[in-house]
């Protein structure tokens, strides 16, 4: 009970919702018998719950669900081959992703969400990175991590993947990016030897 003698609206919502301890329930039932205000409140909750329980989801043709797995597998495989066609080899795409991400990071330097990428960059040389991303699994994980790192402050997942970011570049920007990556890769390889 609150200091004013009423259980409080949250408790009453939990009571109608059925998520309440036995003891609390008993106390509320007793209170409702003698309190007009709270029993009217409970009634209005029950009314809105009853109304909303009539909400129905539209019928969708069964074939939509039946062929869904097939459609998705097909689509994902198609986009995977599109990916490998777009850039001749996976590492370039991956390094490009990182470079694009860095550009994004550079544009919003104050955001703490980019820790993962910072960490990845500080602990990995470009050569290590290429190793990781030439492996299909490693690449998936990298993309996932990048997506997580880019998650904006309001908790919603960022909708764009690094792919989307790259695809949004103009051909000239894309070319410039590839030149810069090649430069970077060359300097890394010569540094390593």
């Amino acid at each position, binding site marked *: 009970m609150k200091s004013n003698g009423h259980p409080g609206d*949250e408790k009453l*919502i939990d009571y109608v919702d059925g998520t309440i301890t036995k003891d609390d329930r008993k106390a509320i039932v007793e209170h409702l018998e003698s309190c007009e205000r709270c029993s009217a409140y409970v009634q209005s909750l029950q009314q809105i719950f009853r*109304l909303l329980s009539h*909400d129905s*989801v539209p019928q969708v043709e069964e074939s939509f669900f039946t062929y869904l797995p097939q459609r998705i597998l097909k689509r994902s495989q198609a986009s995977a081959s599109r990916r490998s066609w777009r850039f001749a080899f996976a590492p370039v795409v991956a390094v490009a992703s990182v470079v694009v991400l860095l550009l994004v990071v550079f544009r919003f330097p104050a955001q703490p969400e980019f820790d993962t990428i910072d960490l990845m960059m500080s602990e990995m040389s470009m050569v290590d990175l290429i190793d990781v991303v030439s492996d299909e699994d490693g690449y998936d994980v990298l993309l996932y991590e990048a997506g997580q790192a880019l998650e904006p402050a309001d908790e919603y*997942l960022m909708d764009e993947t690094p792919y989307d970011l790259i695809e949004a570049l103009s051909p000239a920007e894309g070319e410039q990016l590839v030149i810069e990556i090649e430069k970077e890769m060359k300097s890394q390889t010569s540094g390593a030897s």
Partner: protein
Amino acid sequence: MEERNLMNELGRRLAKGDEDAFTQIVERFSRQVFAVCFRILRDTEEAKDMVQEVFTRVYVKRKSFKGHSSVYTWIYRIAVNLCLSQIKRTRVQTVPLDDVAYRLASRTSLPDTKSQMLKDVIAKLIEALPPKQRAVFILRFYERLSFKEIAEVTGTSIGAAKANYHFAVEHLRRLAQGGEDFEV
């Protein structure tokens, strides 16, 4: 085997890249995901596209599903995040609240359950909730998820999930009552 255990077993196989497990997860869970997407977006075609998008992401990210949350909450999380960002991107105007309150207040009893009017009223009420509250309310009220699961799906604390639910219910109640207040 209980449905949840079976799904989690499928989740473990999915994480190893098993395509058959993916197919089974889609078969078992896609109708439920459709219901959630529809209730958040309130548009059948949009919800269908969304279901496809959700499971495409599930497939692409299958190996990053670590199994420390259940496969249910993981998929719900992807669905809710995608729906909420869709709303953010496409819905500029929110529903005028006065309209809902007026339509409800002008009736003396609940409308016939089968009528279009009822559907409209429910849609308007749910659309009147801020997106995050809307998602929490749908997960609790229609999907009967626990607050712990809702916290996992929405990436908040259990307390915050509960608070969001309480806000949503109170919001809906006020709208349906035409703004009637209960003074303490």
